[in-house]
């Protein structure tokens, strides 16, 4: 049996995958197939039943599900084939994919593959939250899937664990259910998305505990109690029937880890150059898989940008030298990209995305051997968007590995 083939296979039909597929079709690269393992494409916005989505992409204020539908429709209208309930089970060298759909396993051979498998939240186990293992401990994603897609309510009076943007999304999901969470708890000394939460904290009097430690979940069948030590060292017990474990996004990269493609230990996603190209040049990557985790809007534009590079690569896959882009700075958790392709293409939109371990106020330099290519002040906090332009670094014509360093 001969394998099925296409020009570009997009693994994952979330925001990045769909905007990328649409853009590829617009650029007439040939047949584009989006492989989506869920029964419906659209990704995480599908179950974010709240605003704001789509402002820059569609000049409209949309709720998540409507935004997902638009992305889906736009890709389909442009002619991309969206194949749902189809799981990619293996990435083979040169762009061959093992897939398993409802009718069984098959192989799809693509000239280029773009990995857009996105992110998921860290689990309770990954955050080492101790205690029993009752029903009712869910991620925001699982909660929203149950509530918005299936109309199922996992609890009545939950506690939200975490204080990131997505924790706010969890709060809105609770509001949709007509319930007010009992409390929000955060292990860090302060909350991440303070401005968003402030109205809730004031108006709804949502109790907030930051700097908590030793969290423990108790419950035989369902969750009964969340126990922790508060910032003042007092033992706190909240009687609750559910815990929403929110945030601490990590890439959904299991497929990648099992494959031949090089993985970056910093991001947990693939090692990419500034065009999204992976270590196997038949593979590209876009969206949150490349660096956790950005807004849907950000991923949408990233999809468009990578589509442009894929289209150009299909037209003329030039050989060019690439050099590592790296850092040994402990305050930097990750950078993306991790390779620089030394070509004279227009890189004016390209950025280096920096994830921080701790808050910093320092000077960032890009060095090549003894030469400083570029340097600028850098301020930022963990889990916040932080980018620096790539153009001036490339303009300085590095001829070897480029290292990023911080000086106070």
């Amino acid at each position: 049996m001969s394998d099925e083939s296409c020009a570009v296979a997009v693994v994952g039909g979330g925001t990045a995958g769909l905007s990328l597929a649409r853009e590829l079709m617009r650029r007439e690269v040939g047949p584009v197939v989006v492989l989506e393992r869920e029964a419906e494409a659209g990704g995480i916005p599908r179950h974010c039943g709240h605003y704001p989505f789509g402002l820059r992409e569609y000049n409209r204020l949309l709720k998540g599900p409507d935004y997902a539908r638009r992305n889906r429709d736009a890709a389909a209208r442009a002619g991309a084939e969206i194949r749902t309930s189809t799981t990619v089970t293996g990435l083979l060298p040169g762009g061959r994919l093992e897939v398993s759909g409802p009718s069984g396993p098959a192989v799809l051979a693509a000239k280029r593959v773009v990995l857009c498998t996105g992110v998921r939240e860290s689990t309770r186990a990954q955050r080492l939250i101790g205690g029993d293992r009752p029903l009712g401990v869910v991620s925001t994603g699982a909660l929203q899937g149950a509530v918005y897609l299936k109309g199922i309510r996992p609890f009545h009076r939950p506690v939200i664990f975490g204080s990131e943007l997505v924790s706010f999304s969890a709060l809105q999901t609770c509001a949709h259910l007509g319930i007010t969470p009992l409390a929000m708890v955060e292990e860090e000394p302060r909350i991440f998305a303070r401005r968003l939460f402030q109205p809730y904290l004031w108006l709804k009097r949502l109790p907030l505990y930051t700097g908590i430690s030793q969290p423990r979940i108790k419950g035989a069948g369902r969750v009964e109690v969340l126990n922790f030590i508060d910032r003042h060292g007092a033992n706190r017990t909240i009687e609750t029937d559910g815990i929403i474990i929110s945030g601490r996004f990590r890439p959904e990269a299991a497929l990648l880890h099992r494959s031949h493609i090089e993985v970056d230990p910093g991001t947990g996603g693939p090692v990419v150059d500034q065009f999204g190209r992976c270590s196997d040049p038949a593979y590209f990557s876009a969206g949150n898989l490349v660096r956790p985790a950005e807004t849907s809007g950000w991923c949408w534009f990233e999809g468009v940008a990578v589509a442009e590079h894929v289209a150009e690569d299909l037209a003329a896959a030039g050989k060019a030298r690439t050099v590592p882009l790296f850092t040994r700075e402990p305050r930097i958790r990750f950078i993306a990209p991790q390779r620089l392709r030394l070509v004279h293409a227009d890189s004016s939109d390209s950025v280096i995305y920096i994830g921080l371990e701790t808050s910093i106020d320092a000077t960032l330099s890009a060095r090549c051997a003894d030469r400083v290519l570029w340097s600028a002040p850098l301020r930022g906090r963990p889990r916040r968007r932080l980018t620096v332009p790539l153009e001036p670094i490339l303009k300085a014509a590095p001829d070897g590995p480029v290292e990023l360093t911080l000086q106070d």
Partner: protein
Amino acid sequence: MTPPANPVSCDVAIIGAGIVGCAIARQLTLDGLRVVVLEKALDVLDGASKGNSAILHTGFDAPPGSLEQRCMAAGYRDYFDVAAELGLPILRSGAMVLAWTEEQLAALPDLIAKAHDNGVTDVTPLTRKQIVSREPNLSDAVLGGFEIPGEYLIDPWATAHAYLLQALSNGARLMRGTEVLSGRFDQSWLLETSQGEIKAGHVVNCAGLYGDIVDQRLLGHKSFAIRPRKGQFIVFDKAASDLVSATILPVPTETTKGVVICRTIFGNVLVGPTAEEQDSRTDAATDRQTLLALKSKGVAMLPGLERCEITAAYAGLRPASEHKDYQIRHHDKQACVTVGAIRSTGLSAALGIARHVATLLGIASRPLDAPRTIRADRLSDYHRRDWQEPDHGGIVCHCELVTRREIEQVLDGPMPPATLQGLKRRTRVTMGRCQGFYCTAELAEITEERLQRTIGCDHER
């Protein structure tokens, strides 16, 4: 569940549907006896058999001459035939006992001699160089060790389910949510349970963590006291399985085999267990300090684990007692066998224990001429899975690649799960790295009104 109108009547009532109860149910049913299995919990395998290290042990380190050693040796021998018949996956991983200190190194020759005494004659010493060449990712702090080639990875839940399913398909009966409250013996047993009365010729007490309590209720006395021993485990993601091949065992101490690093047949790597004595028979809670300590123990032996993602953490409770050996006793005047204190080796020894119990009971029976067989759940990551077959209906759990067909078959099967935990053990849904981030909603819908304890809280039965 409504109580049966008339007292249920059987030759043997087995109390407790853990691995031991399931194996005994199979043995006695195939021997031609009418068996009823009584399980207190909503589902089978809800006690000590819920969490273990999923290894088929040779019993090389059991005390020579002990009942535990004999049951393990017999159980180990039988497992291969039974696994082949029921389609249970097995994977030969081999194991190594490794010494990390001079003191441990000095203890190795005695352990090897003990293994040979136990009939595990293929146990052979390994030099440091041999160890490192076989397991190149191990820390170079290793000093020496020996190998036990005959240790296997197995599916602990499919094994117990398969034993019980074979018993059920040959006429045994399972009553879940059925707690034995008291019993009277007068020629035969009349058991009072939370689901009505049960008449039984004989009773086998395999109540695990509640073994002494059940003895007290039935016999009015207990000959041992359960001292629950908690073991916490960390499960690392599948990528970690590239780091290690053999099961890595430490030099054991008086109370425990110590912290083990092993692959599982599901493709993960386990680090654990701890050994924490406690009074509670239900508290299987994990705690962060212990998990962090476990992780660093694992990393010290296998540094690559540092970079590996944690998939899950759990704790199992071992029904240890004040005695070192199993406490299997025949109260022949009361037609009762107590199978107690099956501490951590029950999975390996279950088939041997079942034979032993059948002999102790000594009931004249006629083995079934042509017993029916069943096909066990096929959940091994090292064997062909349902998602690789045609027409599976789509993959629901993406991390563990569980198909809709697998889930439906289990829910519609002869022993449907009562809880999500039960469905997890039968299919592996939500057991993977995302722990239900992606598939909880889908599962909630599929299982709504089909489990006794549902994911949604508005439709609980």
